[in-house]
């Protein structure tokens, strides 16, 4: 049963800068399903990361959500049958509610583990920090504690440390009792990324946003981190929004895939459909342009001609028409394609599948 956790409806994010308006996201609409992994792929500058930041209400200035809703289906852990729908776009970015969501109910892992950790604090302290802010005392011996007290009570320093060690153990860091006292520079890239995951998971989030979590890592470490994330997802029943430009990684991780280009979503379907029955010319071109390990033919790679257009001068009509191999003159450069479901659970925005 697919239960949406976060519904994004017609999200538009604009950046007003001196040279004009950058439309970073134009009309993104999709759901993140509870307990599932949603992959978002696209090239740099296509709006992947901004979408993630919008969910956390963390869009850097001068960016603004100009239109759209992000509906977060909140379930109280003590009373999971009741669902409250919170529109994140209406929350005050500095308010208490969003600060509970950010890092607490929705965890986040960033791309660069070196700069995401504060160098002057030990790994244990950093996990403890997240815990102090978000985690409530775990219920002991089944006695129902007063909800009101729990709501506002943070864990003590000692408890936080214990949980930190426990988390480091869970993410497979060797010797967690020693590691909890090490500083980020004493850890390798893979270990740092594990600490980041431990931080993100320490508050039992219902959703994890992973923004290129393995891009800076070697394949062997990448494999470990991906396995770890899948394991933890199974155990904790957590939704993952997995942002990447690596098609191999997304094929392994995601159940649903959203392909973005120039701030627009161009295709959305199950992972299988995207890889085997891609409809949008951009998705197909993307799939053809990667070399496959183990494939024998050494032909030239099919590359997408030209370059990503400037964000200030978006092409008219379909944003991809300048590079599209199936470009239809007089149509694609004039008419903007609509986002429509052409098969069950297969959404595309392309004029090839529209009557015009």
């Amino acid at each position, binding site marked *: 049963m697919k239960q949406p956790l976060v519904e994004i409806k017609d999200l538009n994010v604009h950046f007003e800068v001196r040279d004009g308006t950058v439309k970073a996201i134009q009309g993104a609409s999709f759901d993140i399903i509870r307990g599932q992994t949603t992959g978002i792929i696209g*090239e740099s500058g296509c709006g992947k990361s901004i979408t993630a930041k919008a969910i956390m209400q963390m869009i850097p200035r001068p960016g603004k959500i100009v239109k759209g809703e992000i509906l977060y289906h909140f379930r109280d852990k003590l009373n999971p049958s009741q669902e409250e729908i919170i529109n994140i776009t209406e929350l005050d970015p500095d308010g208490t509610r969003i600060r509970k969501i950010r890092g607490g109910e929705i965890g986040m892992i960033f791309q660069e583990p070196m700069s995401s950790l504060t160098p002057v604090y030990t790994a244990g302290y950093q996990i403890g920090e997240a815990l102090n802010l978000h985690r409530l005392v775990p219920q002991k011996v089944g006695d129902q504690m007063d909800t009101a007290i729990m709501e506002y009570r943070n864990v003590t320093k000692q408890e936080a440390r214990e949980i930190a060690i426990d988390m480091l153990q869970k993410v497979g860091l060797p010797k967690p009792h020693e590691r909890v006292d090490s500083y980020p520079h004493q850890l390798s890239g893979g270990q740092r990324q594990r600490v980041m995951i431990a931080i993100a998971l320490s508050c039992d989030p219902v959703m994890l946003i992973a923004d290129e979590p393995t891009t800076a890592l070697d394949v*062997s470490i990448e*494999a470990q981190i991906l396995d770890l994330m899948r394991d933890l997802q199974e155990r904790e029943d957590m939704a993952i929004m997995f942002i990447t430009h690596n098609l*191999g990684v997304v094929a392994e991780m995601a159940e649903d895939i959203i392909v973005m280009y120039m701030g627009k979503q161009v295709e959305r379907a199950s992972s299988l459909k995207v890889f085997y029955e891609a409809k949008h010319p951009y998705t197909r071109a993307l799939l053809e342009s*990667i*070399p496959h390990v183990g494939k024998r033919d050494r032909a030239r790679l099919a*590359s997408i001609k030209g370059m*990503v257009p400037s964000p200030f001068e978006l092409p008219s009509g379909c944003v991809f028409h300048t590079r599209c191999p199936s470009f239809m003159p007089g149509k694609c450069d004039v008419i903007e394609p609509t986002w429509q479901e052409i098969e069950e659970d297969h959404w595309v925005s392309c004029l090839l599948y529209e009557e015009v």
Partner: protein
Amino acid sequence: MAKKETVYSVRDDIEEHLKPERIKESDVVLEVKGLTKFFPIKKGFMQRVVGNVRAVDDVSFYVREGETLGLVGESGCGKTTASRTVIRLYDATAGAAYFKSSSLSTTDEPVIVNLMDLDQEGLKKVRKEMSMIFQDPINSLNPRMSIYDIVAEPMIIHGQVDSKKNEQTVISLLDRVGLRASYLRRYPHEFSGGQRQRIGIARALALNPKIIFCDEPVSALDVSIQAQTLNLLKDLQADFNLSYVFVAHDLSVVQHISDRVAVMYVGKVAEIAESDVLFNNPLHPYTEALLSSVPKPDPKYESKRIHMQGDVADPSNPPSGCYFHPRCQYAEEICRTTAPEYREIKPGHFVSCHRAEELELKGV
């Protein structure tokens, strides 16, 4: 008075195991033998050397004309240091690198030289024949120089100072890498990442080199731009009969571009073979584990990953015996005690593993 020409050749008194073998074959342009580069760790007031980071440790390989040798391995395994030591950006601790040079030859026939023995003058001459493409297209171009200045700089350094002629050459080079002549007076910040990498490639081609060391040339680029750049490198190789030493960590890219691949682990070469052979029938357990970790762009593929225990060994304090034994699932007693010999098991297939003959390893 005319300056006396130095005659360059290979010294005879070189140690036995560093003597050239392959370079005498007609199509080999570069042969590296026993290349070693240690970085000393200094401590205290007296800068006492307390240890060495064994970045490159007894590495041997050769490159044929018009071929691409891929160098793969995890970060810190010494791939970049190895390529930089060969062109003497670092001074080697030990070892030899033989190169067939035309610019050092006094006759029409190229002469074989040991790059590690060359003096400054010889080095400058021989560097005309080798160039480099760097990973980061943003930081490898001087932001205060125009595209013309950047691409023409190597020519000026090597004494081609006719600016009219240079301009023509630069325009044709830019055209060759797919950039317009009108970009000549622009500056690097006006270009996208992919275009900047093309500028870097044009600069590398400026002196018509024989061999280009490509250090992660596509890892900073987007997928679609990466494909364009790889295609361009292949076209240029065919047109100019270039040899590439292609350093990268992305195995699918390496397999696509390389004729032969060398896998490095903690400063040593674990395995070298023809690309197809290495990917389909690896002989070293590290290669097998590395291949199994590559995420496949196919949701139907069921991954049978080999989990390597722990982290990459510390090159300043490597384990005993085979450096890979703490992470190797096939390790035996001998692996813990004795370092394996680097040997040719099948023609052109070099491995350093005790159990290479008996193991049956899976490729992709």
